[in-house]
């Protein structure tokens, strides 16, 4: 696929430039769909430390680690929007904080008599949410398809 080829090129070049760097100046606020502001509200709320950020040509990734050991990443577009979030670790993050305006529609999405038990997938036109794992080991991600930067595959959000 063409987009995959482009993406691989982007990643290859940015990797060589941008090793992981400590990001101290402007910590970001990890709420899906909102502007990445300079207010560290989210870290304060989740009692977390910003660890690292890295810049690809088409987006920036900020990573914070919660005291529980769970890692949260936010993906920020060149336009400054958080278009995706991902998490992984022993316990779930605060989804109300992380998902912002998308929290309610995701949590209230119909579960079809809950025929499916296990990994949760919520697919709505405006947002996509996947949650998997079990006590002591969870992971997942959410993203806003309309906010994906051009040429970025949703598979990078993790």
């Amino acid at each position: 696929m063409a987009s995959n080829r482009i993406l691989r090129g982007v990643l290859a070049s940015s990797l060589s430039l941008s090793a992981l760097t400590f990001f101290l100046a402007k910590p970001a606020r990890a709420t899906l769909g909102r502007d990445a502001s300079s207010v560290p509200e989210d870290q304060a709320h989740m009692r977390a430390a910003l660890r690292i950020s890295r810049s690809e040509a088409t987006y920036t990734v900020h990573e914070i680690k919660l005291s529980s050991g769970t890692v949260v990443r936010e993906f920020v577009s060149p336009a400054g929007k958080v278009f995706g979030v991902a998490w992984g670790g022993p316990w779930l993050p605060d989804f109300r904080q992380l998902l912002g305006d998308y929290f309610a529609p995701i949590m209230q999405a119909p579960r079809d008599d809950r025929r499916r038990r296990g990994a949760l997938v919520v697919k709505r036109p405006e947002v996509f949410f996947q949650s998997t794992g079990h006590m002591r080991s969870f992971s997942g991600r959410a993203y806003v398809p309309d906010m994906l930067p051009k040429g970025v595959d949703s598979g990078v959000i993790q």
Partner: protein
Amino acid sequence: MNPFRRSTADNLWTLAALVALLFAAGCGGNSGNTGGGGGGGGTPAGCVKSSDQAVAANRSVDKAVTPLGAQNVASLTIDGGPKNNYVNGVFTTVTVCLPGSTGSCQTIDHVLVDTGSFGLRLLTTTGGGQLNLASLHLPAESDAVGPLAECAQFSDGITWGAVRVADIYIGGPTANNMLGEKALNIPVQVIADSTVGSPPSACTAFGTPEDDISGLMANGIIGIGPFQQDCGPGCVTDSSIGLYYHCSSGNCSETAISLAQQVINPIAVFSAATSGATDNNGSVMQLPAVPLAGASLVNGSLVFGIGTESNNGLAGATVYTANGGGDITTVFAQRTLANSFIDSGSNGYFFLTTSTSSIPTCSDTSNAPRFYCYPNNLTCSAVNQGANGAKGTVTFNIADASALVQNGNAAYNNLAGPNTPPPNPGGPTMQTGFDWGLTFFYGRNVFTGIEGVPDAHGNPQVPFYAY
């Protein structure tokens, strides 16, 4: 007799042919490892379109099920659940008593058996379950602030409820749990317990509450996975994890809690059995194989202890030790999924995504939304690896979920659906895994070993699965 049964020799031959086919598929054709769209009509990587082969794979494992009757054996039933709407839900029955009493007890059926969690959770009659607190007033755990509550986390929602103390009896002859194994004076979660009210916003931040019978679809959950406490050391020092709360005047706030106060895997604290052995180091789930069209009712056995009695030896099963989170590694379609797990509380095989597996997801308007709907039956192959280096191939079937469930059966060995994407080469990667749900358990004896409990030789166990 079921028409799918074949002789062992037949199985071995067909399985050999199948393995050869899968090997050929893996080496030829679409060996791309980026797994883009997959195009139309190709066979998904790691799988072959199947007909007879699927039958062989289905029968290639069909371990014996220990009969009920011994003290350390409890029943397993897959029957659609209390609301007759639960596909691949496996249930047992527990008896709950006031601490120290063998007369003040209630027997609760349709308790989901879950190797993906730790601890016993029971739904009250208030929530549509069976535990009646008015007639069985289990003492509450509390601290200086007030009663303790828990917000238990699952990948698809949360359960909120009080932490109370009970004596638990399970298994035993003639369906009399009082003659079975016992876990005395243990903390359990009581869901839909008015003394701690509805979940606070700090709890609902983690997911949708499943605090009634329509959400939980069971009268309780017995978590028998590879750890003792449902939280462990983290919650002793860190209240921000958000699992445990103390309540005052209807307001519940996060708190740290000692290990002894945490909801615990009942098996880990079993008293000594009449044999003199203590069957507290794990369990074996035994379910018979089911036909490819599924079954309306399946009965099996949950045997307590591993290598502690004459009926629970490993018997040649391969041990796959897990990491500190309870995960093993699965390699599927050339993807290494390092956070894979064997979870009787998931009701299918959940792995990859449609764009990375090339298996279409059923439409939202179908009768199996968010399961996989490939237009043929598939027979697939993956390799499980333990932290101890053990490796073994698993062959499994996937049906078109939407077509499959039309027959209304309760048990299927070939339901699958999407999970999360595989690691992203070159970019940031998040842990991801293959969720081996109840589909994996049919025809197998699946052992779950509990961390920190002494094994049959007295050595503390690491968490493990074996089959």
